[in-house]
């Protein structure tokens, strides 16, 4: 997936200018890191060069030019092709938690690693509580519920790893004590 594809998708229901795209992105994907304006304009340039978008109307609203961009037929085709494609599951998954635990075991000892894992567990659970509260608020829009579900599932996966890691580290500590 690339930012380009997302922008193509956001342009599918009509032309938009850059700032509008930034705002729409934030509304539709509240859980994602916000896009920087520079990144959006750079991506739009690339899409323009590839022929997937064309500049549409030029507005002059009390300030600099605001160019609206619209989807071209090739752009629409590329969007459809990408939507059809399956996302390759991540082969390399960067796990900052695992990195920290490994380092803790190297630098300190099993106790330090356990302590870290426990505190990390508490933080994860706290985050899960907040996501749960978000999604069960009456009237929550489905986009928010979906985003919360996704976060919850991943936090749960992390939590399972933490529990397993705790068990392994504890077993390791018991072994080295013998």
């Amino acid at each position: 997936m690339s930012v380009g594809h997302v922008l193509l998708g956001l342009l599918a229901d009509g032309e938009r200018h850059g700032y509008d795209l930034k705002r729409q992105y934030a509304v539709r994907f509240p859980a994602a890191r916000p896009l920087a304006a520079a990144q959006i304009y750079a991506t739009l340039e690339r899409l323009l060069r590839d022929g997937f978008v064309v500049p549409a109307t030029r507005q002059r609203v009390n300030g600099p030019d605001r160019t609206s961009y619209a989807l071209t037929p090739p752009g629409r085709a590329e969007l459809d092709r990408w939507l059809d494609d399956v996302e390759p599951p991540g082969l390399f998954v960067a796990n900052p938690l695992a990195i920290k635990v490994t380092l803790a075991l190297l630098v300190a000892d099993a106790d330090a690693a356990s302590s870290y894992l426990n505190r990390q567990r508490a933080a994860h659970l706290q985050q899960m509580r907040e996501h749960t509260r978000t999604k069960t608020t009456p009237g929550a829009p489905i986009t928010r519920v979906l985003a919360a579900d996704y976060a919850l599932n991943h936090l749960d996966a992390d939590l399972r790893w933490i529990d397993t890691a705790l068990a392994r580290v504890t077993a390791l500590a018991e072994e080295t004590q013998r």
Partner: protein
Amino acid sequence: MTTNPRPTPSPNAPPQDALLSARALVKSYEHAPALRGVSFSASRGEIVAITGPSGSGKSTLLLCLAGILIPDAGEVRFDGLRLDEASEAERSRLRRTSFGVLFQFGQLVPELSASENVALPLLLGGRPRRAAVAAAGTWLDRFGVSDLGERRPGEVSGGQAQRIAMARAMVTEPQVLFADEPTGALDTLAGEQVMTQLTRVAREAGTTVLLVTHEATIAAYADREVAVRDGMIDTDAFATSTVAR
């Protein structure tokens, strides 16, 4: 490096607030130890998740706290009353009036209608049939299953059956609700519906909820978590930060 303030280790509520508490509980099943010295407390209106892997003793802890099982050693207090020393008749009466219980499955009488199932605790308390069924109707409505009043438990889905069971657990307006893996037999969405309604109704009524589960996504519905491992409270795995409501 971010400083995470180390929460004070305490799987229990402050003593003066405790509505339900246990001290040094020990319980074994035919020489297999289930609880090996567990202390716990919960205050009024709290929702506490009791988590742990299978066989950790969390169900046993719940049953002891509810007065369904008598521990081999230790004490259980509810609102000042010693549960572990009370007679079966007293504990049965308590479970009828001040406690509500919710299990994974198999708790509704399959021959009775949903309405009669929910009314049963009231009938046991001597309320006349018409009044009991009317009260049952109100509670079925609160859980969104009022149209299922005349159906049998075997004729409704798992999620609907659990909501009927929740209505029965709450019909006597108990002070504490004990739930043992209430979503265990349900799919994700049905389970979410059950948990959402359970926490909403409990918060509205100020009911304390003790929720046994092995799933973190269910434990996330509670205010705090108490982890049980191998018959003891895992004091390292505390999570005491409560969310402001």
